[in-house]
């Protein structure tokens, strides 16, 4: 069979697969409904139910006798990761002083885009804290999240900064409704709450917000319902939202995110390959709103130190895929055994560093990270000049300009 026929067949397969996809209707409103994933809706429903159950528990336990609104402003908890002020001045470039044997530059890309406009809905809550408990090796052994958002679903919808084309109508009702319907009611002082045991979640409303504490049902769901209720008792409201005043022993705040996530501005990526389908990329961005601690929600991640900063080493990383600068991440067939390793941390100037790799051992990856040294754009360009193939033109977009492109052998 010729490659031409193979491609035609593959194209036809894709055309067939999308032929049945419903076309979302279009709203003419400049701020239209955003497409919501059924999975997210279900997830939110589950969480709502969990909250409802928890509220019931709280009611029985009298845990929520306290008025959250009257609590003092939260004092900052000890975070796993430092919080740096926004980046100012020239962009930071880092180049490896030592490159693993056999690897050479395959691409250098950069953009001056601000990285805004990347919206990721957390469901019906707009803010979330990720709390984790780590073992001695830095691996997470327990986790829970504290999430909150506008209880009025329509109001939350309208506040969504995205301007989607698709047509779903603004939701109606309150976020707590699902918990009320599926959960167990509990009395929480002045707040009515609900608990859903199956979701290990507790939810309530206060000051117009829905607040949810949950472990989910994954491998890091080490806390039971009683513990969740205890956490809920310690949730305090402050000017910027909510936090847990006294988390369970060993738990620390790993990340706080909103539903507006961005990898950061001025994305610049230096990628290497070994000619065998393996490679690694060093991606630098300014002021990322996607903190490394998010990955500690995965049991196979680990907290380590790199260049004097806490970093997360993980075989997976949300957002990592076989894009243009990381084609080496594309699996070679469905059972590609090549391990992936990701390493992310934040430099003191608030430059987010993410190294994505295939074919590197942990030791090689850590050595690579530790070998990074401040560089310049010119030096990066010189590295790009070594690419086996150079693209003469930019990609023709205001978001990405390809400085140099090499082929992945």
């Amino acid at each position: 069979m010729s490659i031409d026929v193979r491609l035609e067949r593959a194209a036809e397969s894709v055309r067939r697969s999308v032929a049945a996809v419903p076309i979302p209707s279009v709203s003419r409103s400049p701020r239209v409904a955003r497409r919501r994933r059924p999975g997210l809706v279900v997830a939110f429903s589950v969480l709502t139910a969990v909250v409802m159950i928890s509220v019931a528990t709280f009611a029985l336990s009298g845990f929520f006798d306290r008025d959250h609104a009257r609590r003092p402003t939260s004092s900052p908890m000890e975070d796993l990761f430092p919080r740096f002020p926004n980046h100012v001045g020239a962009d930071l470039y880092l180049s490896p002083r030592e490159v693993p044997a056999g690897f050479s530059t395959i691409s250098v890309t950069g953009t001056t885009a601000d990285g805004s406009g990347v919206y990721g809905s957390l469901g019906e809550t707009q803010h979330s804290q990720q709390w984790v408990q780590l073992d001695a090796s830095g691996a997470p052994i327990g986790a829970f999240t504290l999430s909150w958002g506008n209880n009025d679903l329509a109001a939350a919808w309208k506040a969504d900064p995205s301007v989607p084309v698709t047509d779903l109508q603004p939701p109606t009702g309150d976020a707590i409704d699902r918990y009320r319907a599926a959960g167990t009611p509990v009395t929480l002082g002045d707040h009515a709450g609900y608990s859903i045991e199956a979701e290990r979640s507790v939810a309530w409303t206060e000051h117009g917000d829905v607040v949810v504490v949950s472990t989910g049902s994954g491998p890091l769901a080490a806390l039971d319902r009683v513990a969740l209720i205890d956490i809920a008792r310690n949730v305090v409201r402050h000017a910027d939202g909510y936090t847990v005043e006294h988390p369970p022993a060993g738990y620390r705040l790993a990340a706080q995110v909103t539903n507006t996530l961005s990898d950061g501005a001025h994305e610049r990526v230096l990628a290497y390959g070994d000619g065998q389908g393996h490679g690694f990329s060093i991606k630098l961005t300014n002021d990322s709103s996607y903190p490394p601690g998010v990955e500690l929600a995965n049991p196979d991640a680990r907290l380590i130190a790199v260049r004097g900063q806490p970093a997360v080493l993980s075989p997976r990383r949300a957002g990592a895929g076989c894009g243009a600068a990381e084609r080496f991440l594309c699996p070679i067939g469905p059972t590609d055994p090549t391990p992936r390793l990701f390493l992310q941390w934040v430099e003191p100037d608030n430059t987010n560093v993410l190294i994505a790799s295939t074919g590197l051992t942990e030791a090689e990856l850590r050595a690579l990270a530790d070998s990074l040294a401040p560089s310049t754009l010119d030096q990066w360009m010189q590295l790009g000049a070594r690419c086996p193939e150079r693209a003469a033109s930019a990609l023709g977009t205001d978001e990405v300009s390809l400085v140099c492109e090499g082929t992945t052998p």
Partner: protein
Amino acid sequence: MCDQTVVQVGDTFDDCYRSEYRRVLALAVVLCRDRHEAEDLTQDAFVALHRNWERISGFEDPGAWVRRVVANRSVSRWRRLRTEARGLVRLGRQEEAEWPDPDAAAVWSEVRRLSVRQAQVIALTYLDGLAVSEVARILAINDATVKTHLQRGRRALAEVLRETDGDDLP
């Protein structure tokens, strides 16, 4: 395509959107690894088209424009954040959608391993059956460059997929 010659006076963004959505989605599907990501990318491209509709419908080819946006934005890795970050914190990672056709999945997986330009050219050529000049217009490159990327991409695919390459441009 919903280009100027097709979009008549009174035709709207909606018309373009409805006629092009699936075809643009197909392009996004093959250039992205994840189906959900492709859907997001497609919608976002149409959002961008919607925002610029007055200008684009008057002076440019909307169909080409939206394909160019998809082709270029598929390059940007942050695109995936939008898909994969959702629910990650609270509910754990979502697995990516499976391809219904393993052979097609293998072919497009290899296409994505080509250089950006080669992948874009092949996707536009085979999915939409576009001529070299049309692909060139979408990607804002010249015809000769399209031919070069097409030939090199096909040759590379033939090698990795163990197929023959007749080297006949479609």
